[in-house]
């Protein structure tokens, strides 16, 4: 190892040695003067992963939508056909179920945002730091009780002689029973924490001074919330809706548990891939949520919501 690797014309470092010219050091010099190499190194592994695993898989699925399946043996026939796409686009079953699914996903999203806003606002702007910490824990904890357990718990709650009926009966009200309403309630419940968290984070980023400025200019609580808080929290709210909307759009388990006889797009996909063994048709049906989500992402992209997930 050479210690006099420094340029000869440099004056001596007055007692502070120059760092040793190790391999790491040389690599370091190379990297820091070659930003493009640095970028390439950073990107290669994740891009390799995402492109290979995800993009290829997704593309293959989409291609499959143009194939068909032999009905008895279940083997895929790799001949191009638009049959599945046409079936999905024209079949009244698919139209009904798509509309129902979108309706459910929208309602779930609206309910979640409506519930998440006050609690997130309370956490971010009203609660003391201590209370805030406790609230975050309280919101996060239910995430760990398994999805299935919670769905079955709702099945129990919504039952004819469940806790809800028991609570409502004295008021002459009744549980909605199993069905779409129950599905909406349960899905809203399941995704609520995923909506609260980004909204909370977004609201926390709204500077207090803006709220004060609004009050200072004569804005009472509601105008302040409407004109200042909501617009500023919009990206975060949209980020939250991506969760609730997309998770609802693909769900088939909850609707199975509390949905009564209803089915959603997820069920159709699942039936076709799991039961009917018709991957091409399943892939064609899957195009519907993919198109919806892409549309939604394109719509919200410029709001900056994607940075808030």
């Amino acid at each position: 190892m050479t210690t006099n690797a420094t340029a000869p014309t440099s004056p001596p470092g007055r007692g502070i040695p120059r760092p040793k010219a190790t391999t790491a050091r040389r690599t370091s010099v190379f990297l820091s003067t070659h930003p493009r190499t640095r970028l390439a190194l950073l990107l290669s592994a994740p891009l390799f992963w995402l492109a290979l695993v995800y993009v290829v898989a997704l593309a293959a699925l989409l291609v499959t939508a143009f194939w068909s399946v032999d009905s008895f043996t279940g083997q895929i026939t790799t001949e191009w056909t638009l049959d599945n796409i046409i079936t999905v686009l024209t079949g009244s079953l698919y139209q009904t179920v798509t509309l129902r699914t979108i309706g459910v996903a929208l309602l779930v999203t609206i309910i979640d945002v409506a519930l998440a806003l006050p609690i997130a606002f309370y956490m971010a702007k009203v609660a003391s730091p201590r209370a805030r910490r406790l609230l975050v824990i309280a919101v996060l904890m239910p995430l760990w009780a398994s999805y299935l357990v919670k769905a079955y718990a709702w099945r129990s709650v919504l039952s004819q002689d469940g806790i809800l009926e028991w609570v409502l009966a004295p008021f002459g009200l009744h549980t909605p029973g199993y069905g779409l309403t129950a599905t909406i309630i349960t899905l809203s419940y399941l995704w609520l924490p995923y909506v609260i968290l980004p909204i909370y984070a977004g609201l926390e980023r709204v500077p207090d001074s803006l709220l004060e400025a609004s009050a200072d200019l004569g804005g009472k609580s509601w105008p302040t919330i409407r004109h200042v808080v909501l617009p500023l929290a919009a990206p975060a709210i949209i980020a939250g809706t991506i969760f609730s909307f997309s998770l609802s759009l693909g769900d088939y388990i909850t609707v199975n548990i509390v949905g009564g006889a209803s089915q959603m797009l997820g069920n159709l996909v699942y039936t076709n891939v799991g039961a009917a063994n018709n991957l091409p048709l399943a892939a064609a049906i899957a195009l519907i949520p993919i198109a919806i989500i892409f549309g939604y992402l394109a719509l919200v992209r410029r709001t900056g919501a994607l940075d808030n997930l």
Partner: protein
Amino acid sequence: MTDQQPAIRLTGLTKEFGAVTAVDHVDLEIAAGEFFSMLGPSGSGKTTVLRLIAGFEQPTSGTIELFGDDVTKRAPFDRDVNTVFQDYALFPHMSVLDNVAYGLRVRGIGRKERIERARRALASVRLEQMADRRPAQLSGGQRQRVALARATVVQPKVLLLDEPLGALDLKLREQMQVELKQIQRELGITFIFVTHDQEEALTLSDRVAVFNNGRIEQLGTPAELYERPVSRFVADFVGTSNLFDDQTSQVLLGRGGTHSVRPEKMTVDSSADASGDGVHTAPGTVVETIYLGSGIRVVVDLDAGPRVSVLEQNARNRARDEDRGDRVVVSWHDDDVVALGGADAAPAPAA
């Protein structure tokens, strides 16, 4: 007319944050139309007083009156005072025009009228062309002016300004000072202006309150503060002072007590020929001369002890001949010696 009454009257105003007393029994009256400044080191409670007046904080005790009305318990949006925040707090999601129109909008003023009035307010700060931009697309000085327009468009009786120029460049700040003063004169609104820049406070204000540790240390016109500081703290904080402690005063002035002499009241000569009636002289050695452009600061170690700083104007007929190590005589007139009061706080803890 309510104008006869003080615009603001604070009585025994106190604010405690846990163990910290941020504001400590402040009594203060500010006349309508006055340009009033609060000056003081960091943490002395200036912002807190402003926030109490605006209503963002509730006082621990004491009352706040606005033109005779007790507003202590009122919400911020119920008070006829507006604030220009230090960081401007412009709404980033609104255009400049919408920012300015905001106060009118939440007051339920019709779209057409509020746009017109907002445009007029923007014109008064010479930003008509920027109406459609977002705050992020403006420079610091422009933002500051938008904040000003936003606060004045609702015609408050009192405008609170919390270091509105703190974030600006020196050059820009000087410009904005002139503009601020002009706007205040035109609108005739009471300005309460917070700053820690003594030069700014002196230049702009009708009266200045010097804060220290949550209390008002001295209240008066700029000249009063500068020429007759009541304490060592004020003498030191407002401008530069040469301070003589008890012992030094005995030697140099022939009497006890703490005294201060401003650098610009002293002169440096190569020999003691300038003595006259009431003139003190003291020999010393030049330690440093600093070129300031408009003047030259000569730092002299007096033989009698203290190091003093003398400010010589870089005027036409000055012969700049002092050099480091030169023997000189420093002289000043007894009239320019200020005796500092007994309430002698230690200099503000700094750095």
